[in-house]
């Protein structure tokens, strides 16, 4: 198998941290509405976007993910009242740090998606998949023992 062949087969892997109360419900709604979005996104349900520890994201990049989306309730809508405000502060910083270390800013994204925004789930995941496809596979921060 030549190197070029592998390149052609490459599909972006996108990890989506979806908050249980809004984004996950939104993705559910997208499914109910039969809205198609690229199968590149792997959705991981978390109780609140505030649960997403920056370590999770660095680890994901180490193990071969090409892009990460952290999505939760709109500010003011958090099931736990204030969880997403902390998320907002944390990821404002985290994004800047990732950029500073040399990651392309497109690879770590955050969105607010509520439970009624099924079409937005479709749109966001499609957009991000295209952006990351254009960037190509991520080699930065990658741990060589998980080279795949």
């Amino acid at each position, binding site marked *: 198998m030549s190197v070029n062949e592998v390149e052609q087969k490459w599909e972006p892997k996108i990890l989506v941290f979806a908050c249980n109360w809004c984004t996950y419900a939104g993705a559910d709604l997208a499914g109910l509405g039969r809205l198609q979005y690229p199968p590149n996104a792997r959705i991981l349900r978390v109780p609140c976007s505030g649960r997403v520890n*920056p370590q999770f994201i660095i680890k994901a990049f180490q193990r071969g993910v090409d892009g990460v989306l952290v999505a939760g309730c709109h500010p003011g809508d958090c099931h736990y009242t*204030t969880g997403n*405000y902390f998320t907002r502060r944390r990821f*404002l*910083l985290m994004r800047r*740090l990732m950029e500073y270390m040399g990651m392309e800013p497109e690879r770590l994204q955050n969105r607010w998606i509520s439970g009624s925004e099924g079409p937005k789930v479709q749109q966001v995941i499609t957009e991000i998949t295209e952006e990351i496809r254009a960037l190509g596979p991520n080699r930065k*921060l*990658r741990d*060589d023992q998980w080279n795949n």
Partner: protein
Amino acid sequence: MEQLTLQIRNMAKEILKKGDAKVIIGWEKGNFWYVSTPAFIDKPEDAERLIWDEYCTNNLAKYLMGYKDLEGKVAIFVKGCDARGVNRLVQDKQINREKVLLIGLSCPGMKDEKKAQELGENAEIPLSKKCEECRYPDPVTFDLFIGEKKSQKKVKDSKDFSQVKEIEGMTPDEKYNKSAANYEKCLRCYACRNVCPACNCKDCIFDHSSKGWLGKANTVSDNMFFAMTRALHVAGRCIDCGECERVCPVNIPIMLMNNKMMQDINNLFGEYEAGLDPEDKLPLGSFEYSDPEEFM
């Protein structure tokens, strides 16, 4: 400074005799003329070991963690950065401010021990890197004070972030190559963590290799995982004492990351300087409804 050394010894003797404190943490002369190491004095006659010179670089605040369960007080000599370190520990509820006796010293800026070793005793020794940028040579909090309260050192009005700006101007690949080159050297000896007054978790995730966060193998990827995680853990809590960089055996510019975090916190959430007021809310432990909104 000899004058101050004598005053320090007398005061230490008095404190121990009166029983105001059980232990005194200060500095003593190390094995070389360019090294002054932390000293832990618990008998009045040992107070003669204490000194105050241009090489008392160590930030003593972290050593208070070892005396958390001591019955009675601990006295500690503090420069500007040590005092901020103590504030840091008080703010994190690691120590009780009532149980420490702070003896303030105005810091003239410490000399670089690595350069001193190279240049020899007779040469002009430059200031240590962490002291060049220092903006608080006088302790921000103390109970007793020795010597003049005003440091002779010139202090800048605001922190200089030009090195951070320089990196921000690079392309992503350049940035990555630069940081990978830095962290390729990292031995993960955790000296930076051990010395840091902001790294005061009882249980550190990096001590648990079996949990799978960080393997035992030394790879650039894992080293950067360590570096980024630590930068985020101390973000908003770093007191800018520069000890991490000083103790790094392979000279990684660790403060580049911490400075970046400081700069961004100032820009995003308003000016904040850690370790000045132990009652303050931490930038990442609080929020405002009016925080900048980027995630639409």
